[in-house]
């Protein structure tokens, strides 16, 4: 349905008779119709693969142990994801909150403790990124795919996996999805995300 509305409206606009503001309003209407009529339950995760490189990090952080073994929620550490455009790397103090006590005999934790005692944070290497002219926001995506759907928050990792892959199976993160415009737009098409340029390119 969205497809239909959009092409029709673009066609009209191309003839110079449709005003861009009303186009925006119509799209917002279409969006709210979908979310309120249960479209959101019908989520189609994006496909696509990217053969990422193995990135060497200052500490080989084991995502798998934290997520799979200890069942820690992604948003416990990446706490800003639901409130901000960025998910955030956890503050070192958060790591130390547990690791003052837990696993202090492991070399990785000893290295972390060294950083902490020096008053420094590790210089992590960025793995997932989009260009500066793309305004991606974690907050909106979590709202749509988790909170607005009443999706169980404890399973949020399945939603994170849309773009980040199965982090629960990795140690340090590796880029496994293309994260390029065609890929984003494809998912927006399938799931009724906004199609206006200015939504992402402000």
């Amino acid at each position, binding site marked *: 349905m969205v497809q239909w509305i959009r092409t029709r409206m673009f066609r009209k606009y191309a003839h110079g008779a449709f005003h861009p503001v009303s186009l925006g309003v119509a799209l917002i209407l279409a969006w709210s119709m979908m979310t309120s009529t249960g479209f959101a339950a019908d989520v189609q995760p994006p496909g696509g693969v990217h053969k*990422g*490189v193995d*990135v*060497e990090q200052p500490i080989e952080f084991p995502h798998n142990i934290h997520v799979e073994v200890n069942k820690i929620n992604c948003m416990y550490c990446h706490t*800003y994801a639901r*409130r*901000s*455009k*960025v998910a*955030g*790397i*956890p*503050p*070192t*103090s*958060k790591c130390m909150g547990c690791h003052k006590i837990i696993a202090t005999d492991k070399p990785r934790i000893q290295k972390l403790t060294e950083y*902490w005692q020096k*008053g*420094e*944070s*590790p*210089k*992590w*290497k*960025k*793995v*997932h*990124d*989009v*260009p*500066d002219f793309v305004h991606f926001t974690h907050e909106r995506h979590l709202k749509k795919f988790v909170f607005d759907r009443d999706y169980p928050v404890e399973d949020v990792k399945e939603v994170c996996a849309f773009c980040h892959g199965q982090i629960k199976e990795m140690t340090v993160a*590796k*880029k496994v999805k293309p994260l390029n415009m065609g890929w984003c737009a494809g998912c927006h098409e399938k799931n009724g995300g906004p199609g206006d340029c200015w939504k992402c390119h402000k």
Partner: protein
Amino acid sequence: MSGKLNRRDFLKALGLGGTATLAGCDMPTTVTLEEGKEDVVSYLLPEEYVIPGVGVTYASTCTQCNAGCGVHGRVREGRVLKVEGHPDSPINAGKTCQMGQALVQAHYNPDRIKSPMVREGGSLVPATWEKAQALLDEKLGSKANLAAGRVAWLTGTVSGHQRALITNHLESVGSNHHFAVEVVNTNVWSAVSRDMLDDPQPQISLDKAKLILSFGADFMGTWQSPVHFAGQFSRMRTAADRGALIQVESKMSMTGGSADLWVAIRPGTEGILALGLANYLIANGVSSASLPGDARDKLAAYDMQKVSNATGVSTATIERIGKALKNRAPSVVLAGAAVEGQVNGYEAVSAIMLLNVMLGNIGQTILPSGKFPLQQLEAKVGGTRDLAAFAQAAAQKQFDVVLVHGANPVFTAPASLKLDEALASVPFKVVMTQFPDETAMMADLVLPVSSTLEDWGTHVAAYQAGASNISIQQPLMEPLYDQTRGFGDIVISMLAMRNAAQYGSFKDYYGYLRNVFANLKGAGATASLSPDEFWNNSLQAGMIKIDSTPRKHTVKASIAAIDAPAADANFPLTLIPSARMGLFDGRHANLPWLQESPDQIAKVVWGSWAEIHPSTASKMGITHGDVIRIESEAGGIEARAYLTNTVHADAIAVPLGQGHTEYGRYAKGRGVNPLKIVKAAVDAKTGELALFATRVKVSKTNKNEIILRLGHSDTQHGRRLVRTVSVDALKRTKGA
């Protein structure tokens, strides 16, 4: 001058010139989407109110011109990203101009000076702060052998506690020479207002006017408080009973571009037109009761035909303006830089103010200002009189030490003042600046100061819009470079050298301000607050309201005869060194955003040009883009001719701003500076330089260059890109 811009320069200008530019902006050395290349560092401890990715807003004050607009800066992850107007500021009510928008570009500018520099063996070399301080101590400290009156400060317009500290510093070194220089100013207007109304900065209320008659006052671009007046103007324009703007000038300004009626006038004859209009009004029934007894007789000499001959404005137009003035009350009549900048500028502005008196505008659209109670904080308003006075005093070897801040006199002074030679003869010159400008390059000691967004300050705008306020400037982020210092910090440290008992206890300017604020008298609603509460509230609001007593206007009108500038067959044209919002007086030529935002009228970017009327050009065989030589008795410059009917046929306009010989990569070596060929005549009453009275002649060179210009054409070539509809047609269809 080179009008050519190769691809490499172009990319550089866009900030894409490779790693050097990026590194200079203090960006990470690698900006890439590649995995594992860019660092990402978390907080050690999370700050409670900080969410990465979400901006926090702080209030501060814009310093890009002297209007003192309040701003809100958005800070994310410790870096300021954007500056917008402070919604509660009585000056700018949430808006900024383009110069205000570019405040962040001055802050992140790659050409900022990053460490002190000392002159050694003829050239400036980087030095440590220890060395710089030692040098200051040697020349200005307690052991320095300073005779009375041998130290001078040379600044731009300065106010608030920075001004108070400068005054105190001068006192501590036994001197009182504070020169404030500013090429764009309204000092003659102020002098006339003071003499005729007993109020140097009367409040203008454009929104109450039904007609604005502006003689070249670019009140939305460069005049007094542009954002404030732009707000008033838009309210006037959108009111149900819409007011009108008539702009009379020799070169169209941005304000002129918005006029309902734009009138080109022969340069330097605005005062004659004003007297002619006064005469017309009396003849048509406007009372002359408020004027001196001999007014009628004196004005009778300015009959319509004579005025028309002198000004080049047709009698029909004079009558049209006269009728509008008579019928649309209240009105307001303003005078701008081109009227002030004549040898009889004072008389011309007086004639214009006379119209306000006759038309009963005083008390209606021209209102009394409040008398600011804290005199030591009031703005020391800069002008060109001080430019000449400094050049003269320095040439007479009156100073051993000169301290410069917030001014670039070597760039702005006309060559005929020989200010550079005079400055060179001063034994010790200290320049406190962010950028390697022309004046800094002549210094013996250069002290790199913090940017506006890194520093503390208090500001009292000369034009106090609405209410009396102190605007507060606070750091929005940590300094980008560890070898820069706040201006206040530097002055406090110099004061401590002379007067340790009083200033030694302040660690820095912040400490001084905290102390001052704890004792600030006359600030509204301070009584019930603790010093900490008052301080925090002030920072949050970005300003403090000060209780002031309103002045009373007592009108003392006078009329003086005004002669048209004498014709000169050798120098047939008048030079108009026009300032515009954007590059302003040249201080913003190092900000690429302002270089690339087109001149509001000519739409030219990145260079100099000379605006000449097509009829004048055709007489000399000059075509668009021809490089022409413009010569006065004081020197010559070359610029590309830009043919336009937005300039009077007897004038040639060269915009201010370009022609820097220093000042970083974006400004240096670009275009020409018309101020250099201005003849050093002065307005007799005020001593301000007559910047708009220089006569020039024009000759062709055999070069022709492209003028980089937005749009490049004034016609739509029949393509109807922008459709228009006549007012009548619109009215007919309204509501249909």
